[in-house]
């Protein structure tokens, strides 16, 4: 493991980090196949990271960085966010449980190869090569994770699947400030593909498209990245900035705290969700365009009041000399004199007991696509978040944000809701096996 994340000096979370195995031990009872999973992973992650959105460190990555794709949960959710990410959405061709199993098994096999790396098989040169070659003759993992999510339409459009739909999985509906483009929305299956380098994510996408052309039809994709950060003299690492110039991810829940993750991110045993869904998570994807020209013409003080933070340091407005990791004291500012009541961070996370369960795990990337017909930059945020309950999580947060002053500068144009599958138990298992098992069980019962 070349990527020794123990060296990463994220100021807030070093102490809270635990090894992956330790994490599994603490989770005993939370997921149905815990004991099996203990024996499973062949490769261990260096560390589970404290904050998913800690900025990727400059000069700290290696092409041989490997994030295990097996385990209780899928990789790419609570694992550290690398510099590059992508969400691709597909239509699924599956008329029977066999078809779906076929898809899951082959997808798992490709994920297994791509995230571990190796030499693609050589074909006769008169045949098309088995690999695109864009990362060279040897595929190296480069921190790659591929996370599978299932959309509501996969279940809704298939009578044999509909009874197995995760309870809160719905088709994303329009919020008041949205201008959703149908060509950038929804899908039967999402792949979140993240890696140290963009070529690794593109290589993975092309591999999967080529390998699974009979089962997956690409609908849309959005790529993004986050700036890598050089630690400061005191070894502190700031959160990466978004295209509005503000730090994004400051108040994310601690991914190194299994108890917090079980509460907020992973679907648990007593959630009312179908059993197969335990250890999965709801994934919300939003392509949020930023009107950057207009933003750049806005006075700095106004920008800060809209966001609720000091732009340069990320400090909360009631403690302008503190850091982004210090927590605003809203109780002492009930009228919003320091941090306006309608500022982005205050609406998103009011830090009250009632709103504690709506805390979501954000894993966003910035995107920069091109130029609009009006000659403006098409830039924004590929917002991705995970939560144990979609309604109490993202949907509740977004409802609170509806009408926020920031809306003048942002426009969600695409995305969708997906259910990220539980993890897998070892080489004989595959991603999605619990759903297939549930389908088989239902088949036997009816026949």
């Amino acid at each position, binding site marked *: 493991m070349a990527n020794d994340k123990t060296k990463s000096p994220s100021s807030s979370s070093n102490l809270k980090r635990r090894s992956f195995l330790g994490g599994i031990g603490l989770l005993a009872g939370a997921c149905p196949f815990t004991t099996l999973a203990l024996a499973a992973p062949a490769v261990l992650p260096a560390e589970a990271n404290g904050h998913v959105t800690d900025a990727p460190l400059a000069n700290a990555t290696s092409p041989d960085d490997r994030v295990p794709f097996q385990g209780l949960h899928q990789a790419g959710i609570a694992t550290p966010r690398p510099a590059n990410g992508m969400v691709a959405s597909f*239509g*699924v*061709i599956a008329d029977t449980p066999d078809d779906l199993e076929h898809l899951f098994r082959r997808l798992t096999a490709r994920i297994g190869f791509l995230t571990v790396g190796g030499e693609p098989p050589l*074909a*006769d040169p*008169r*045949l*098309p090569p088995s690999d695109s070659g864009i990362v060279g003759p040897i595929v190296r993992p480069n921190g790659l994770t591929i996370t599978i999510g299932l959309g509501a339409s996969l279940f809704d*459009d298939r009578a044999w699947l509909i009874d197995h739909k995760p309870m809160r999985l719905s088709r994303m509906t329009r919020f008041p400030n949205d201008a959703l483009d149908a060509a950038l929305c929804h899908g039967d299956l999402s792949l979140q593909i993240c890696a140290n380098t963009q070529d690794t994510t593109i290589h993975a996408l092309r591999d999967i498209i*080529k390998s699974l*052309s*009979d*089962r*997956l*039809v690409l609908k849309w994709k959005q790529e993004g990245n986050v700036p890598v950060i050089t630690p400061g003299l005191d070894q502190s690492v700031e959160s990466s900035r978004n295209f509005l110039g503000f730090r994004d991810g400051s108040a994310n829940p601690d991914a190194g705290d299994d108890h917090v993750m079980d509460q907020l991110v992973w679907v648990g045993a007593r959630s009312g969700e179908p059993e197969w869904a335990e250890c999965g998570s709801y994934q919300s994807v939003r392509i949020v365009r930023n009107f950057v020209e207009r933003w750049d013409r806005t006075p700095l003080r106004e920008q800060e009041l809209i966001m609720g933070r000091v732009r340069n340091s990320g400090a909360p407005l009631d403690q302008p000399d503190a850091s982004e990791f210090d927590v605003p004291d809203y109780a002492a500012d009930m009228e919003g004199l320091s941090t306006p009541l309608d500022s982005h961070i205050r609406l998103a996370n009011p830090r009250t007991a009632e709103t504690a369960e709506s805390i979501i795990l954000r894993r966003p990337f910035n995107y920069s696509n091109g130029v609009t017909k009006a000659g403006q930059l098409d830039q924004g945020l590929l917002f991705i978040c995970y939560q144990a309950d979609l309604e109490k999580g993202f949907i509740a947060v977004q409802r609170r944000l509806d009408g926020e002053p920031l809306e003048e500068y942002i426009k969600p144009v695409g995305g969708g809701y997906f259910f990220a599958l539980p993890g897998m138990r070892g080489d004989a298992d595959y991603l999605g096996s619990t759903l297939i098992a549930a389908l088989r069980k239902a088949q036997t019962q009816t026949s």
Partner: protein
Amino acid sequence: MKLQHMLAMATLGLVISGPAFAQSELDLVEPIVEYKLYVTERTTQLIEGVTAFVDAIKSGELEKAKALYPAVRVPYEEIEPIAELFSDLDVSIDSRADDYELAEVDPEFPGFHRIEYGLWSRNSTEDLDEVADKLLADVTELHSRIEALTFPPEKVVGGAAVLMEEVALTKISGEENRYSRTDLWDFKANSEGAYTIVNLVRPLIADTEVDFLTEVDANFDKVFTTLAKYEKGDGYVSYLELTEADRNALSAAINTLAEDLSTLRGKLGLD
């Protein structure tokens, strides 16, 4: 017989196959001779069709011209891999408005799709006489060039995949015939053209590539049965009536055919 084959081989310029694919180069002679017959038959039909089409346009028969349009294109779409060997003619016959800086109103925009734009978007046969005459001249020229052509085997065999790539690239999205929405006709013609090539070389790989042929046949079957749901009269309903589910099913079958057929040249030992 042997001598004839040798001569045919020489004119066809067949590439000698290597040991990995023990295919006799002689075996390809017959499929290619047959394919040439097929292609010239199609270009003959194309000239006949375009002649009637041009007549309708020049006599101002708008509805007749519209009715003829999709069927007239079919023979061209069936033999596209060969027609594309003459890129000057292909551009002149079948380029799309996107290929021109000023799109539809670009004076350079020629061929089928310029006429399609006039007939549907402007609902008129006006100002089309010159473009129509040029189209007829182009397809006539295409026919004579093809008659004189020595068919490169790798282009013929590779043509099956090329036709599927065509569908995957522009037909599945409904972009090719965006004014008339007659894309399902092209869709069928490209697929038929590809299947013809597969069937011509089938005897050469029937014993060695059983699984491959089974999968290819199944995917062609998926394409043809899905398309059959949209048949109307002698042709097809508007592309806009294609459901999302069927579009997905077609897209998956087409892309898988493109993947599979991209190996056909190699399987026959062609470089």
